[in-house]
């Protein structure tokens, strides 16, 4: 299995539901808590696995805004795994999820240096690196109804901009979406083979119009009436 996410840039409205839902699930999750510093004072900061940024393409008035959520890409050739000296950072053989064993991490930050996507953050309170776990503590949990065995961010997204599935299965929703919508990974040229795919914004279809400008002769009150019954 090769589990991962598809992010649809065509419907992401930048609402941050995914970022907060992730925070909420994971602060009591397998690598919890996700600490916050200065929560009620100047310059609050905290550990988030998912961050939503926004970009503008082009110049006014032909500009477009694109909202851009990013979390761990669960790369096939994850450099963060290669560089980790303690073996805390690893990729699961069965499903490809990249995890950080909190008991082993020594907080050297090297994996964050190796990650081009900014997926890993140091939690100052535990001294360890933390990242998206693809909600590995949800997706196999049989005490949850099957439909809820998904990452929290995918379940919560109000505009269906996030999808979860197995990229090794050509008939899965994620595989189909990637094919149909021309999805691609980010910064492929670095060679990390990211699993998460991004779907580009769609182009709208043109609507044909009919012009029937009538000769506006005389006053409106003299315009012709059609016989229409009530």
């Amino acid at each position, binding site marked *: 299995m090769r589990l991962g996410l598809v992010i649809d840039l065509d419907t992401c409205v*930048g609402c*941050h539901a995914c*970022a907060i839902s992730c925070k909420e699930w994971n602060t009591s999750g397998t690598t919890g808590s996700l600490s916050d510093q200065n929560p009620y004072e*100047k*310059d*609050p*900061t*905290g*550990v*988030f696995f998912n*961050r*939503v*940024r*926004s*970009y*503008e*393409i*082009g*110049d006014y008035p032909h500009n477009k*805004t*694109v909202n*851009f959520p*990013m979390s761990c890409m669960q790369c096939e050739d994850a*450099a963060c*795994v*290669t*560089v*980790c*000296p*303690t*073996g*805390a950072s690893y990729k699961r053989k069965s499903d490809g999820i990249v995890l950080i064993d909190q008991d*082993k*991490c*020594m*907080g*050297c*930050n*090297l994996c*964050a*240096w*190796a*990650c*081009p*996507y*900014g997926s890993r*953050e*140091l939690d*100052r309170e*535990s*001294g*360890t690196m933390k990242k998206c776990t693809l909600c590995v503590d949800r997706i196999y949990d049989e005490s949850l109804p099957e439909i809820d065995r998904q990452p929290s961010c995918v379940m919560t997204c109000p505009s269906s901009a996030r999808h979860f599935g197995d990229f090794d299965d050509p008939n899965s929703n994620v595989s189909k979406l990637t094919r149909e919508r021309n999805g*691609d990974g*980010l*910064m492929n*040229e*670095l*060679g990390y083979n990211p699993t998460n795919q*991004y779907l*580009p914004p769609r182009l709208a279809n043109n609507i044909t119009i009919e012009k029937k400008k009538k000769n506006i002769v005389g006053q409106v009150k003299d315009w012709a009436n059609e016989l229409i019954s009530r």
Partner: protein
Amino acid sequence: MHPAFSIIFFTITSGLGYGLLFFSGLYVVLDRTGDISESLFSPLVVSSIIGLTLVALGLLSSILHLANPKNAWRAFLRFRSSWLSREGVFALLTFPVVFAFIYTIIATETSSVTSKTTAIILMIISLLTVYSTGMIYACLKTIRAWNSPLVPTNYVLLGLLSGALTMFAILSYYNQQSELLLTLIMGLLCLTFITKAIYYYFIGKPSELSIKTATGLSSRKVRLLHTGESSKNFLMREFGFDISVKKMLLLRFFSILLMIVVPTLCLITQSTSFHFILIAVACNFLGLLLERWLFFAEAKHVVNLYYGREA
């Protein structure tokens, strides 16, 4: 990259220490010991002990950089894939090798086969460790300024240079001169200058990566609108370091001046004066501090692209 003093100190100190150890070994291999009585206070033993102490200090400093040091012992376990692991293993192995070296040069003659063997092993492990340190940075494709063979080259050369200068100072303290060592130092000074210049040229070239390639939104101009947090987060604290071009050029100038030019001048004019040699060592060390600081400060991690910054 945010320059962390503990890491800067670690790489310089351990580089210097390994340079010292390398030249200690070289001395034995090239039969340059002359008529030194092999005791605990002979120059080679002193240089070895100082070298090892510096290596240990460096290691301690690097552990300070860790957020969760209680797991530091695990760092040796991923030798197979991680350069940091490899560096750790080699650093660890350095200790028995140095003890063996010291023992052999005291217990046997410095010209004996055992001495020469341990000396060669010492030289190899010194090079390997410093090379590994450089490779920790060079293997990262995310930081263009580091992702080059020039980086481990510079690490090795600068380690050798600072070690050689320190060795020269120790020998001078013992009133010994070494023409060979002086020649080697001059050679190293030239070599480091040239490689440093090539390196600055290399990282001065514009990057092929941009916010357009990072986001894949590559058709028209792309600008950052909002990052999703209004104060600095971990990524910007770690990777969002800013340095003005003016400051950077100034520091480069001074680092080359202190690290290479001043020692060159000292050694050309006063190669026999211990005080001048000390000045050369001190200036080289200061220059190294600047050079290593710049090494971090000038390095831009590719994640900056997502923040509308350069990388």
